[in-house]
């Protein structure tokens, strides 16, 4: 056909249209991040003995004999660190020794990587303490939330000891407070040494953490139950216990598939 002057003007349009059409085909699918899972298990111990509620005579560093009727603590903001950086899991778990189903949980969508450090927070971050009614593990129905001085009880142990000066020889350690110098929220980092967590695609690695209740009463400040048996408000004594229990976790085992 005759290519007239007008056609020449239209021609670039057609070229452009053709180019546009060909460039509009879908991008190749992005590489989906490869992920696996991490099973986290807690074992609550008192020194060398597995914790058993209501039974047995445990002995603290001060030599007080005691038993434990309940033990609960919040674990949140678990994190893994490796060469590529850190992964944070913004979830809240209430570990309750009276309900063994709470001692294990699985974190999904962990990027495939070799992680040489594992961390967690004992407690609930301050934002959640000021944001009104929460649910799930953070539901006040769990008995870990103060109604009179709003805030979460980060860790809570109840028991008895003949040394306790409290009524009925009770031991009550309700560790709470998220503000200022008496903030008891603890960020705990656990280097894994040679026991790296190797997350593999579609597979489940496991880390078993051991918690030693004796650490609550050992150091930096040795607690004797005749002088300290009841902590049910925030403040210096709660901070004391929290500073002690900062060292309560150790990595007992790492199992990679």
């Amino acid at each position, binding site marked *: 056909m005759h290519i007239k002057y007008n056609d020449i003007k239209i021609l670039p349009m057609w070229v452009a249209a053709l180019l546009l059409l060909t460039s509009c085909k879908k991008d190749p699918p992005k590489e989906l991040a490869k992920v696996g899972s991490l099973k986290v298990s807690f074992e609550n111990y008192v020194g060398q003995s597995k914790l058993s509620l209501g039974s047995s005579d445990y002995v603290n560093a001060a030599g007080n004999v005691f038993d434990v009727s309940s033990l609960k603590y919040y674990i949140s903001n678990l994190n893994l660190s490796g060469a590529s950086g850190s992964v944070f899991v913004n979830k809240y778990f209430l570990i309750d020794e009276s309900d063994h189903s709470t001692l294990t949980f699985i974190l999904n969508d962990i990027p495939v990587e070799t992680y040489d450090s594992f961390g967690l927070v004992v407690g609930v971050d301050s934002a959640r*303490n*000021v*944001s*009104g*009614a*929460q*649910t799930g593990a953070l*539901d*006040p*129905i769990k008995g870990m*939330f103060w*109604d*009179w*001085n*709003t*805030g979460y009880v980060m860790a809570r142990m109840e028991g008895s000891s003949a040394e306790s000066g409290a009524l009925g020889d009770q031991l009550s350690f309700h560790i709470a407070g998220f503000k200022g110098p*008496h903030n008891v929220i603890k960020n705990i980092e656990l280097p894994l040494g040679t026991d790296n967590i190797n997350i593999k695609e579609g597979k489940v690695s496991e880390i078993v953490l051991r918690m030693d209740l004796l650490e609550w009463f050992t150091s930096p400040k040795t607690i004797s139950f005749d002088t300290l048996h009841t902590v049910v*408000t*925030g*403040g210096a004594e709660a901070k004391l216990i929290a500073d002690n229990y900062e060292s309560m976790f150790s990595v007992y085992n790492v199992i990679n598939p």
Partner: protein
Amino acid sequence: MRTIGRSFVLGSMMLVLLLVWESCSQDVPIKPQASLDDIEFKVPPGFPQPVYTFGGNEVTPERFKLGRALFYETRLSRDNTISCGSCHQQFAAFAHFEHSVSHGIDGLTGTRNSPALFNIAWHPNFMWDGGINHIEVQPLAPITNPIEMDETMGGVISKLKADAVYKQMFNDAYGSELINSQLIFKALALFQSLMISSNSRFDKYMRNEPGGTMSNEELNGLNLVRQKCSPCHQEPLFTDYSFRNNGLPFDTVYNDVGRMKITLDPADSMKYKVPSLRNVGLSGSFMHDGRMNTLQEVLDHYDSGIVPSSTLDPMLSGGIPLTDQEKSDIIRFLQTLNDYEFISDERFADPNFQ
């Protein structure tokens, strides 16, 4: 048609005219009662923005009705006798009329006066010592307090779940028959946040509306309050929500140290939250433990009853000297802060009595 006599028609017309004339007369314009379809959070003219902004809890009539049902629900108490409304009575601006401290379950009494409830969405914290930092978690305190309602949240939820009416109300309000503590708290927060008091005679005076006339004594009282009671009782909320020691003698029976219990700071000893002056003519008794029964006593205290202490508010170190006439005028002014529309608003009333 012939059966409708001329006199009937004439009489009807006269009746209509009479009614129209009545409604045009000046003193108090007849306002149609707000209905349950008129549920919206509106910031009154001149009020600052509220603290509570209904995040994740947008206002709907269904949520309001659920919150109201829960507010007046005696099953929130262990023995099903006590509701929020037991100690927060609408006719007293949701305070406890003529009770210095309230009696809870089994007739047990505490150490603190039930505060009046209105304009709650503006409060940055709750209770006389400010120990509760969010409106949604406030109800947990009276519900679980052994001397108030002595119930557990688990107990409350079991009772509500057993009631088909509540299952339906939760469904209408929050989209499913799920009943948990979070939804209970959100509904209560929403209902109470809608309890706004901003239509007293003083408010109408400020807005130049009909019904806003103030006498000379009342205006004098207004000026005195502005001069001598600010910034603690600052307009338009008539509180600045600060914690202050206003010179009350320490009560050795109640042993109440106020805000210090929360902050552990000795500088907060005997400090309590400044309450609003709105509706004080309806909600007495006064002070954190209700120790005063009349506004006269209150003003006499500020004039000559201040007890010095290390945490006494510096603005009160010389008291607030007032003549008898000044006290009288102030009291007259304070009565203009009574919001009769608020205390008769059917939307906030007990649905069990309607």
